[in-house]
């Protein structure tokens, strides 16, 4: 018999994280690496992603991404490409992370970086951005428990 006051168990939903991965400035590299860190280390199995251009190249299933998952976009600079493209082609995003806000606009807009040339300083930037994504992801997961 179920005791009074027992709540039904709830399961967190997966949260979508979409990175701009921009090729024209450092912010794009950091957005990509921070998103990868969330996916494969910090929230393995709890976060899902999609290649942003699949909203054009893919089909209905891909375009439904932001309707199916509460979604955080991660943008390198204040052009907000991931957020804008997702909202134009898929659905409203639940939260956003802007790399330029975390590492500074000037640094974010400096030359794009190959992963071959990553320094400890860059890895520190990745860690800071990943932490911001994690906080927002956990909040969304809590809000969207089923």
């Amino acid at each position, binding site marked *: 018999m179920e005791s009074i006051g027992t709540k039904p168990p709830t399961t967190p939903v997966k949260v979508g994280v979409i990175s701009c991965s921009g090729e*024209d400035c450092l912010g794009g590299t950091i957005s990509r690496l921070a998103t990868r860190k969330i996916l494969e280390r910090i929230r393995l199995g709890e976060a899902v992603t999609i290649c942003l*251009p699949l909203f054009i190249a893919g089909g209905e299933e891909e375009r439904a991404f932001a309707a199916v998952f509460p979604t955080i976009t991660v943008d390198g600079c204040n*052009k907000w490409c*991931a957020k804008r493209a997702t909202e134009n082609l898929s659905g409203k995003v639940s939260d956003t992370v802007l790399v330029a806000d975390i590492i500074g606009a000037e640094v974010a807009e400096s030359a794009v970086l190959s992963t071959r040339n990553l320094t400890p300083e860059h890895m520190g930037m990745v860690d800071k951005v990943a932490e911001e994504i994690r906080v927002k992801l956990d909040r969304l997961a809590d809000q969207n428990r089923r």
Partner: protein
Amino acid sequence: MSEKVKVVPCSGIGKVHGLLARELALKVANELCAEITETPCLAYIVTEDPEIKEKIARGKCVTIDGCPKMCAAKSVAHAGGDIAEEIKIIEILKNYRGVQPGNATALNDDGWKIVDEAALKVAARVQQVYEGEV
């Protein structure tokens, strides 16, 4: 031709193929053909913002895609870009059967070898595109 060639990789985030495409593009555009190329952000192209559409419409594009979904080529074409060459990572990998190049976060030594070798061929192609030999 004076317009720089736009080198646009898919940068796919889920597989090593996307990282190979990205690093190949950066090697060509930042090192081997720095004077004649640029790398507009694919995500910006996907927004179809008039500014990037106008930029893409000037000169030729070389796209580099990781998988058969061809996201870079389709997005550039959708935004009105003139694609002179579609590079396919899966075709390049046919010359490296059995090789594990790393993962979507980081390439290993084999992955960098593929990038460095393929970049020389892509750079030669980009030079031809820039010179109008297409």
